[in-house]
């Protein structure tokens, strides 16, 4: 179903998908496999692409401009996977000193820093006594490009 148009490849989006996260539980006992499943390869299900681990994937909404240099602005949607182990350089939803914050995780010389994608914000060094947790790892960001929809 893919058609070639210069560099951009267009695919039929899977619009019939009612997949909400998580999906696994309801699948387990489902009695009637859909005959449509046989044709699943011919369309693209965005849910399946963006949500590798339905049970641990959450959506969040960006507030503020801490990642504006990364092209992430207020109102954008984050796809966040809680099951992934944090690694150096990951963009993560962090919880620090009573607030959720969107930051890069950066390890330098045995220290842990939270780095913004906005030069106006200083790096935050995570102190051992800080009330800190990595809530989840950002896997995708979704931005609306047209205000008419």
């Amino acid at each position, binding site marked *: 179903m893919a058609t070639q148009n210069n560099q951009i490849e267009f695919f039929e989006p899977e619009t019939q998908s*009612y997949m*909400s*996260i*998580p*999906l*696994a*539980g*309801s699948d*387990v*006992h*489902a*009695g*009637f496999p859909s005959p449509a499943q046989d044709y699943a390869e011919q369309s693209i299900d965005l849910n399946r692409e963006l949500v590798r*681990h*339905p*049970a*641990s994937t*959450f*959506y*969040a*909404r*960006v*507030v*503020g401009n*801490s990642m504006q240099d990364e092209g992430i602005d207020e109102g954008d*949607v*984050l796809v966040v996977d*809680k*099951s992934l182990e944090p690694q150096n350089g990951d963009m993560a*939803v962090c*919880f620090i000193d*009573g*607030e*959720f*914050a*969107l930051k890069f995780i950066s390890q330098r010389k045995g220290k842990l820093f939270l780095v913004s994608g906005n030069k106006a914000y200083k790096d935050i060094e995570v102190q051992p006594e800080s*009330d800190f*947790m990595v*809530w989840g790892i950002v896997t995708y960001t979704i931005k609306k490009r047209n205000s008419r929809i």
Partner: protein
Amino acid sequence: MPYGLVDCNNFFVSCERVFRPELNNKPVVVLSNNDGCVVSRSNEAKAMNIPMGMPFYQLKEHDKNNIVTAFSSNYVLYGDMSHRVMSILSNTIGNIIPYSIDESFFAIDNFQQLPHTKAVALAKNIHQSTGIPVSIGIAPTKTLAKVACKFAKKLKGYKSACIINTDEKRMKALQLTAIEDVWGIGRRTIPTLKQKGIVTAADFLRLNEKDIRREFGLPLAQTWKELNGIDCIDIEKGDNKQSICTSRSFAQMVDNEEQLQTHIANFAAQCAMKLRKQHSAAQSVMVFISSNRFRTDLQQYSNACTQMLEVAASNTYEIVSAASLALHKIFKKGVQYKKAGVVLCDISPANAIQTSMFDENQNRRDKDNRLSALIDSINKANGRDTICLAAQLSEPNNDNTQPLFNNNLRREHLSERYTTNWNELLKVK
């Protein structure tokens, strides 16, 4: 074949804390419908001697320094989080037997399949992936798995997973388990047992099985067997529920039939949706109504009526119609109603419906079923009650097109539906 139990710790409170991590290590409670009483407590709230079921107004008096955070119950959120926990469990173990919103049993072939290290890793995985802390108990029977789970929850050393796989461990655990903490032993039986000098589960095992059966009946004899390591309680059949109920206490009492009909229509519609979700159909629709039994100054009345359907159905239209008829039969003027509900019984799989020889309505029924499936998909995509029957609306010509019972619940401390509503997502700076 051993069983395991995964139990979510302080489940409703834990769900709220996932999205409010600042409340970790602080006293938190969740209130029942209409913000009536405490139904879930954090460990810190338990340590403040806040009992389960404490009415909210009493909590306000008890909590003089105002340190407890109270939430209205957010069942949409809890349902979604429960689903996540169960799906990780079923992906890891396979053979799961969900038991309640926050507990699920599972069956394993042998104890080697899930040794302590793996059980600990499973608990950790569920906690990390969903934010919900869980305890795991594994034992030869479901009742013993419950016992094991209690130890996993109580004693830090177990790292959230406890396995009873030898007779020695079993007896030791039962000696340390109070009889009232045993699954399946009813509150009413406990005084009688205590009179016989039975304090622990181990004491209970000293009774004779036949005597138990004679004096207390079969269920308690089954519990006795299970504590002895003999697997005999089967809850698997409850996988698809044999009855489905939706009921509410009203924040404000209702005295006119039209308004009560609206509530009943909503309850019935919700039952029908649950029914379709488990691919079942019901043949009997029961409606019950009751006045406020605490208001002895008012007329007391309660009644129930069951309406049988010719053929088992699951479409909203038929279920709501039957419920409406049932209510009309028992509605009594002049009574202030405090509680009402709809219960569906005689439930069978939708693909095994006995059709009646005299059923001339098959065509219409097929149409209603297709319509209900369509309504479900629209409501799923656009939010609950985007489409509903006119009977579910309070006054069709009013601006207020929200189904009545949603508005009528008192939920002053409701959290966001973080996981199911685009407009209520977690906000990150």
